[in-house]
């Protein structure tokens, strides 16, 4: 027998009540854990995908759209720009390197990106099988694409026009797989890479392109019909720019936006803006979950308070058996902590399971795979916070136990 066993016996004597307290706390903690896991992994993914990219230069339009389409590969592009215009930037001493991107086609929902080998280097990618592309119509698959398509090296596949699956097929110009990339945990895993020339040739040869506006890239950000977003030879969709010095951040975007027909957007700035917009929703849910945790604390308090009122005699008897005031105080605190700890454990379990389940479920529609099998530092803060709430709720009842006047309680008939 010790204080833990004693507290545990008291909890067991009120199973239903204890279960409700644990459940309430578990729900609050679980909700916050899911939010923490999602927002943290989302931010990490945003940061990972944008690493090494200081600036994106593309067609005029929404800067957020430009970043979403050419860094994260989720939105439709703002349009295309003449390669010649982009090449002119190379002369700028503030620019260290540039990677061209030519978008417009997809393969089974995965985007085909015409680019050069620097793009692979940007994400520290390397072929796990085969080699990178050399000639037009050679393509390299990201790891998720390869897992999904089950294509072997040397096999051919046909790209679809547009960046969603329903687009018409470019039957006349199949790609040949030359390599598969190792998983990088970045957007690279979900892309099909080829040379810029391949994308030009697909669209240059196509007899069916001229004049037809199809729904996949028919509208620009303002809902207006876009002029002509079909990639023409000698055009690219965007270039990814790396600065030579941090100073460039102050000068270059303004220079490009005001002096050329191009648009420059910073991934860091735009993704911060995006997180800011999404953040309001996350904060609202977080506040709600905090209210749940406080309610759970209140419920632990009420439960312990009522239990102690019923238990006044027990406390007096224990004192008469030799228990010191501190022991009774500790026993009540332990009871509160046991309940809270159980709630926190349940919450962590629920949160991680739910995050994993939601992540798996969302994988089909989202570009980001979120897993529940990871821990984020915020959880530690959450655990401490919940335990503090539990301790605080038990404190008043514990002091009540501490101050029990045994002679008076025992003299009551």
């Amino acid at each position, binding site marked *: *027998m*010790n204080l833990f*066993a*004693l507290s545990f*016996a*008291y909890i*067991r*004597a009120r199973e239903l009540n204890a279960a409700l307290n644990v459940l309430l706390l578990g729900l609050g903690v679980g909700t916050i854990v899911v939010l923490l896991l999602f927002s943290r992994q989302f931010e990490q993914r945003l940061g990972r995908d944008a690493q090494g990219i200081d600036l994106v230069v593309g067609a005029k339009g929404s800067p957020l759209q430009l970043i979403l389409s050419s860094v994260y590969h989720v939105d439709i592009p703002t349009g295309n720009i003449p390669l010649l215009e982009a090449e002119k930037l190379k002369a700028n001493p503030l620019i260290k390197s540039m990677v061209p991107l030519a978008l417009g086609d997809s393969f089974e929902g995965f985007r085909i990106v015409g680019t050069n080998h620097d793009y692979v280097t940007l994400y520290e990618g390397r072929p796990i099988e085969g080699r990178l592309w050399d000639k037009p119509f050679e393509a390299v698959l990201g790891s998720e694409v390869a897992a999904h398509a089950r294509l072997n090296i040397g096999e051919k596949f046909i790209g679809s026009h547009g960046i969603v699956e329903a687009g018409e097929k470019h039957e006349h110009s199949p790609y040949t797989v030359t390599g598969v990339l190792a998983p990088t945990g970045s957007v690279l895993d979900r892309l099909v890479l080829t040379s810029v020339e391949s994308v030009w040739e697909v669209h240059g040869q196509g007899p069916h392109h001229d004049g037809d506006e199809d729904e996949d890239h028919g509208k620009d950000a303002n809902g207006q019909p876009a002029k002509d977003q079909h990639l023409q030879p000698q055009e690219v969709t965007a270039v990814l720019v790396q600065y030579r010095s941090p100073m460039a951040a102050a000068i270059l975007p303004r220079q490009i936006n005001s002096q050329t027909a191009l648009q420059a957007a910073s991934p860091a700035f735009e993704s911060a803006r995006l997180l800011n917009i999404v953040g309001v929703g996350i904060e609202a849910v977080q506040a709600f979950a905090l209210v749940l945790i406080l309610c759970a604390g209140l419920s632990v308090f009420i439960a312990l308070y009522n239990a102690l009122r019923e238990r006044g*005699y*027990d406390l007096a*008897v*224990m*004192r*008469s*058996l*030799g*228990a*010191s*005031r*501190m*022991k009774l105080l500790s026993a009540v605190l332990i009871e509160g902590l046991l309940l809270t700890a159980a709630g926190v454990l349940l919450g962590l379990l629920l949160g991680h399971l739910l995050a994993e389940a939601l992540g798996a479920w969302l994988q089909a529609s989202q570009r980001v795979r979120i897993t529940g099998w990871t821990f984020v530092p915020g959880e530690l803060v959450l655990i401490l916070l919940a335990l503090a709430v539990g301790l605080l709720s038990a404190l008043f009842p514990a002091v009540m136990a501490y101050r029990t006047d*045994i*002679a008076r309680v*025992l*003299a009551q008939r």
Partner: protein
Amino acid sequence: MFALKGIRHAYNGQEVLRLDQWLVGQGEHWLVLGQSGCGKTTLLHILAGILAPSEGSVAIAGQDLGELSASGLDRFRGRHVGIVFQRLHLIPSLTVIGNLRLAQYLAGGDRNPDDAALLLESLGLADKLASLPQSLSFGQSQRAAVARAVVNKPDLILADEPTSNLDDANAAAALEVLLTQARACNATLVIATHDRRIKDRFANQLTLGGGA
């Protein structure tokens, strides 16, 4: 074994107990008699160190209770005093053996963990060790409560009205258990009662006279 001197106790300015001197030797069995409200329970509480008298000194086994700190008093009570309450007050959330183990733990540790089970077996509760108190009959509860009071081999056993609500047979049985257990650990036994049926069993009697 214990010595009470010049005891006065008052609740809210009203004197409820006055006892000039009471000396009791080790192993003696005493009956404290008197009508309800004459201070029997107060006297037991003072003896147990639960209540500090308004005036006077209490020494048990050579220890002046007034000199002990609050936690020292708790420890002393756990080691040296066993109390059987009128309404028994077994902890309802703990099993019978759990109640005894709690008493052992609170008195400073389960030095002889087997004692509790052996004691309960000797009181005919062998098959009730793991039962909750609510499933016991009154007689069984009474024996369990006595067992809890004596499990730490106290020097002093205090019992408050152990027989008052019982029929003759049960009262005799309850008294027998107390006397047997007190003898077994050579403890001083003090029973507070207004039950006239057990008066003849005790040579040593202290009558409290309603505040007089």
